[in-house]
């Protein structure tokens, strides 16, 4: 019957049109979903934690590897058997993908073991608030070694790093300050390395302190005062020489007879170390004077000789 045939064709066309519309709709939905998902993945890690200090040093791997090879090849060939690649891997494993407020000394154990090396007796130089001067001194007088002159300290000096649970596991934007959390990768590293450096010292050890600092030359809160002093081994270390340096032309806040120095001497004597304290130890002061030859403090030195 002509009418019935006509309505069947209309129904067919309608079904076809609806089908096409549904397909198109699904396609559009798929495209929209796909772009949303991929867009989310390309965004620069929005889930990474945000901190107050500078982030991981860019090209950390190249810097650490280069310094390691530089140290064992060009400077200390007796350490030629060290594996710099393994050392880098062990440093990376200590913090990558971890929450940077949860770092422990154990995280650094493999690194410490791979990178540690013996330190000759009578050469250890500790320092507190005198970093610049201490390092200038060891560069011109290679009879002394600060932590930053050992392989571990040399690699890590002035470098920062921290991880994050989300990819890529390293946070180049920011890292926690000590005030945000104490168990951060940098603080834990230096505490652990300092402890090891103190434990390795033998014979006569030296410490350079700052007699121009208002808060006192010796502070119990410093790494020297809280970690290094207590990890010197009385069976290996015989004497502690304190060099109390004042800035040329700077305030003379403290000398060997000062309160904080007396406190340090008491702590050390209790642990059976012999102590000698010297105000403005000459060779280091001369280094200061080389850069301030016209200062009256330096003229006094010349006249008295």
């Amino acid at each position: 019957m002509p009418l019935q045939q006509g309505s069947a064709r209309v129904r067919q066309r309608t079904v076809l049109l609806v089908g096409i519309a549904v397909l198109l709709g699904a396609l559009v939905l798929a495209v929209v979903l796909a772009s949303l998902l991929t867009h989310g993945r390309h965004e620069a890690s929005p889930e990474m934690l945000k901190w107050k200090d500078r982030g991981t040093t860019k090209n950390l791997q190249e810097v650490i590897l280069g310094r390691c090879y530089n140290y064992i090849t060009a400077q200390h060939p007796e350490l030629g058997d060290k594996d710099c690649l393994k050392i880098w891997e062990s440093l990376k494993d200590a913090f990558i993908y971890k929450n940077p407020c949860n770092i422990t000394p154990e995280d650094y154990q493999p690194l410490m073991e791979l990178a540690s090396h013996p330190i000759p007796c009578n050469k250890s130089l500790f320092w507190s608030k005198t970093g610049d001067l201490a390092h200038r001194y060891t560069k011109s007088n290679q009879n002394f070694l600060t932590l930053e002159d050992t392989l571990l300290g040399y690699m890590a000096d002035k470098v920062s790093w921290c991880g994050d649970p989300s990819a890529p596991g390293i946070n180049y934007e920011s890292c926690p300050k000590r005030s945000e959390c104490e168990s951060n990768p940098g603080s834990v590293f230096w505490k652990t390395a300092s402890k090891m450096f103190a434990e390795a010292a033998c014979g006569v050890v030296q410490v350079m302190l700052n007699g121009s600092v208002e808060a006192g030359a010796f502070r119990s809160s410093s790494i020297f005062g809280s970690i290094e002093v207590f990890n010197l081994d009385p069976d290996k270390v015989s004497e502690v020489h304190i060099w109390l340096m004042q800035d040329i032309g700077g305030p003379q806040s403290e000398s060997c007879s000062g309160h904080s120095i007396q406190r340090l001497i008491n702590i050390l004597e209790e642990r059976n170390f012999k102590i000698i304290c010297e105000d403005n130890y000459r060779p280091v002061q001369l280094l200061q004077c080389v850069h301030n030859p016209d200062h009256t403090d330096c003229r006094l030195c010349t006249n008295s000789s």
Partner: protein
Amino acid sequence: KWKGEGTTQNLESIVIGRCYDYIRIVNPAVGEKNCSQIWEAFKNAFINKDPCSILPKDYELFINLTLHTIPPNKSLFWENNQLLVNSFADRGRRYMSLGDTLFGFVADFLYWCGQADSPGLDYESCPTTVECENNTVDSFWRMASITYAQHSSGVIHVLLNGSADGGAYPQPGFFADYEIPNLQKDKISQIVIWVVDDIEGPDIDSCGVNTVKTLETRLKTLGYDVTCTDNNKSVMFLLCL
């Protein structure tokens, strides 16, 4: 085969590492540099070539990639007193010696050479200056010295060793042959010479005497404003020991 030390082990890692160390930590003011490209340019200067046929200009691309401004009044030239220079310069903070520039920093204290018809580095030995003048390392430092002198300005300092055998101002020498001829006279206001003796060393040369006099005369003839100090104060402090 050759008489000099062979290529330093892990040379590539050391050069690239030092490059990043410099631009990220030592002197970030120089801005972004492509350290891999810099290594390639360095290597291509001497790889696959007879290590006695290397010329300063072979390092031209390397220098172009590592060049940066040297702040005026900070240049510190020297002869025979590297330890003292490092102490004076304070890692570029007080002065910027050649070893404190990016191009000097990446190569300081290293040895390297290649061989003709081989893409590898020679780790066994490298030629010394005596064996051939145009060797890989000397040509590098000639190019670096030329560049350093060309980009120095303001007050120039020269630190000489008054205890050195043969005099404080060596001739031939890098300062005499590659640096003085490349100083840009119109950019330099004054040349300050310091003659410092080694601790407990002999006082062989001083201002106005011997080789130092030769140097002073040469610079004055070239039209520079020259002063010379025997830096006695520094010497006396060091002797105070």
